[in-house]
């Protein structure tokens, strides 16, 4: 009944019917901290969310992720993109360059991880190594209620 706000009508709002936003206007430590629930309008969702942020840095980060995520038709969390792709220790620059954007790279990792989970009948917390644009990427995640949730990804 409340799927349009991720099943959480008490703390999420969706006035335009495009995506849910956190009524608490959550922000922390200078980075956006709220999850996004938008399956069909990621750019609209992210831009709308960015408009509610007080910290300019956070807004810029979210806008940048929105631009990069333009071709991805999945929920996109700017913090998740930054977490996975902006730390040089993850060594994922080549993958991003190959696929054109962090959003595309994330989508490819998500897709490859889902295939690995399905083929290996993986459950719970998992680690798998998948080929993404010719690079062997270690993906750590968890299967939650049948859905693959990516925790992190890096090149060993």
């Amino acid at each position: 009944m409340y799927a349009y706000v991720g099943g959480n009508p008490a703390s999420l709002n969706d006035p335009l019917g495009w995506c849910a936003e956190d009524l608490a206007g959550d922000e922390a430590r200078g980075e956006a901290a709220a999850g996004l629930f938008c399956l069909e309008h990621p750019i609209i969702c992210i831009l709308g969310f960015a408009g509610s942020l007080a910290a300019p840095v956070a807004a810029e980060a979210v806008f940048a992720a929105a631009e990069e995520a333009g071709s991805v038709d999945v929920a996109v969390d700017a913090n998740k993109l930054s977490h996975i792709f902006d730390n040089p220790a993850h060594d994922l620059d080549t993958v991003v360059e190959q696929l054109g954007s962090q959003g595309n790279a994330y989508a490819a990792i998500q897709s490859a991880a889902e295939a690995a989970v399905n083929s290996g009948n993986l459950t719970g917390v998992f680690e798998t190594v998948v080929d993404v644009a010719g690079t062997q990427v270690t993906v750590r995640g968890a299967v939650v209620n049948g859905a693959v949730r990516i925790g992190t990804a890096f090149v060993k």
Partner: protein
Amino acid sequence: MHLEPLETAVLEKLLNGDHPILVALKEQMSGLSVKARKYTGAGFFTEFSLALTAHRLPASSSRIRFGDVEATIDGLNNGAGFVLFIDDGLLHMLEGYSYDEPWPKEIHGFSVKYSNADRKAELAKLD
């Protein structure tokens, strides 16, 4: 900067054991301090600074990524995972991450455990 309680608990759990690499990394920890810590909203990265006298691991073990510890944390329904980065034979960084949930602003309660009680598969990464 000092290690946060969660970081300390995860590192102690990760480095527990008598594998020679674990023993060597525990020795490195004796002079460890926090060089930098970044919260990303989806987790954290904590970089380490070690004592100048810290002994590097053998060249064959100079680059390792491992982590078979997970945490139950207040505010995270799906818990959290961790990866320890060893570069150039030295402890470099601890990463913590959630599974598509915002990382809590403050951590008031947590517990840590091994992902798999049998650590053989994870410890094989150290060989």
